[in-house]
């Protein structure tokens, strides 16, 4: 069989950079034999905007809106990491109320990101309806964001020492209506999704072992799907996460189905967190007095946050001026995607779409 292969000319299929299911401009060159993938090579850089070089010519305050534009689906978690790093440098701790507002906003953002993921994942497998049921729920979250932060997606809501505006009573009413509706909607979506066809397409596919998780530095639902308990809210508690009790859902086998299961349970966990946080919301100021001109003292600052895709770290090196000397992002999708070249060979082309979907990447976040 070996010498036969050389005669036959290899058949390369280019998945991307313009392809309906690469969630952005990612290109995977698949060497294919019929439907079976022999080897794959991921090509990055189509959405590279050189933001780390740009950051060296922008002040800390001007970099704030850029933080929403990496992972536009969970933008406030990015703002949180950036603001956290600066607060650590300046030694400012936001008031209690601001911390709880941040937890509420962050968890709502995580839910919105998982909603988009579930919809897009099922869209890749060919089912259109779950996408719209789930987007209806996501639409309500975006309305809540517009109510409080002023923008639906690129919110620019966090600032050093707290948040720009306070929570309005209208927002609290919207949250209650949303929480009443969401548990029932998720059950309906689950019943619709988990048909025999879905289970056949997704179970026992794209196994990620525990050893792979450590070797490739995978974090977030991709790692938790394989049973490794890694969640920055628990391992490196920041803000007021210690005061809120929530569990971390874990998978067992680490196949696409477990990653799907983990994310669906995470949506419910985030809803519980929001419920508790709204209950515990204290009165008082929503922002600390922050300096008008931000100058970080010299030194290195690193702040890690649990974004919807995994551990997100902001590394700031400042030389005392108003502009960062070096700004680096430890991006979860960058590490999570690096395992794709190990997962794809041996599967069919339809599986490539399912595996890539289950790893849940956002390309502008990877290419920076």
């Amino acid at each position, binding site marked *: 069989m070996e010498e036969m292969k050389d005669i036959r000319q290899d058949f390369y299929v280019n998945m991307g950079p313009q392809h309906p299911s690469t969630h952005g401009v990612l290109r995977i060159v698949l060497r294919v034999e019929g439907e079976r993938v022999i080897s794959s090579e991921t090509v*990055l*850089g189509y959405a*590279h905007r*050189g933001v*780390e*070089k740009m950051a060296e010519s922008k002040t800390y305050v001007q970099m704030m809106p850029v933080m929403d534009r990496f992972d536009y689906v969970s933008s406030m978690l990015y703002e949180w990491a950036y603001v956290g*790093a600066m607060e*650590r*440098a300046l*030694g400012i701790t936001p008031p209690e109320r601001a911390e709880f507002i941040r937890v509420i906003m962050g968890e709502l953002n995580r839910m919105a990101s998982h909603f988009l993921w579930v919809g897009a994942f099922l869209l890749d497998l060919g089912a259109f309806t779950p996408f719209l049921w789930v987007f209806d729920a996501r639409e309500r979250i975006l309305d809540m964001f517009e109510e409080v932060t002023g923008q639906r997606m690129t919110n620019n809501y966090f600032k050093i020492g707290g948040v720009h505006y306070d929570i309005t009573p209208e927002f609290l009413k919207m949250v209650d209506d949303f929480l009443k509706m969401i548990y029932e909607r998720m059950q309906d979506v689950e019943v619709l999704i988990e048909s025999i066809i879905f289970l056949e397409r997704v179970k026992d596919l794209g196994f990620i072992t525990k050893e792979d*998780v*450590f*070797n*490739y*530095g995978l*974090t977030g639902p991709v*790692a938790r799907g394989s049973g*490794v*308990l*890694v969640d920055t809210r628990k*391992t*490196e508690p920041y803000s007021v996460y210690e005061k809120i009790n929530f569990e971390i859902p874990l998978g067992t086998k680490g196949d696409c189905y477990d990653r799907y299961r983990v994310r669906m349970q995470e949506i419910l966990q985030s809803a519980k967190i929001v419920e508790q946080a709204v209950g515990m919301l204290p009165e008082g100021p929503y922002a600390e007095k922050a300096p008008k001109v931000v100058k970080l003292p010299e*030194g*290195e*600052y*690193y*702040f*890690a946050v649990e974004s919807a895709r995994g*551990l997100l*770290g902001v*590394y700031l*090196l400042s030389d005392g001026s108003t502009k960062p*000397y*070096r700004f*680096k992002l*430890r991006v979860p999708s*960058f*590490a999570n995607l*690096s*395992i794709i070249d*190990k997962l794809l060979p041996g599967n069919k082309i339809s599986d490539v779409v399912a595996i890539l979907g289950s790893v849940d990447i956002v390309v502008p976040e990877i*290419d*920076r």
Partner: protein
Amino acid sequence: MGVVSILENLNLEKVDKEYSKSGFCHAFLLKDKSEIREVAKRFKEDGYYLETIVGYDKGEGVRLVYIFNRMDKVHRTGIYIDVAYFEEVDTVSDIFSSGIWCESEVYDLLGNTFKGHPSLKRLLTPEGLQGYPLLKSWKEED
């Protein structure tokens, strides 16, 4: 086990870091660059993972910060090595596979090559880009 005990009898100089101030639990400056593979092996055995590699242009050379961390409890440790511009560094990609892309990115943006790297090529910048953007000496030829 404590980080300090893993890394004993290695040519290291401890940099004092306070977690609540900088986010790093420990930080070490590795004087002998060739020991980076040994450091990576020890971290791997003890259950750490390579979080990321940060590289920046220090003015007279490039400093690479290897950040290792644990998954169960935060033990963020920064290992600094100072290299000259475009100098070759030993790769850790065969120990930590996440190093493959991290090192490719450092090569792409800073120019330092890595000995033993399986596929060292530009990762993020378009093909045919001359020069290495993150160096302070990089001029945009328009």
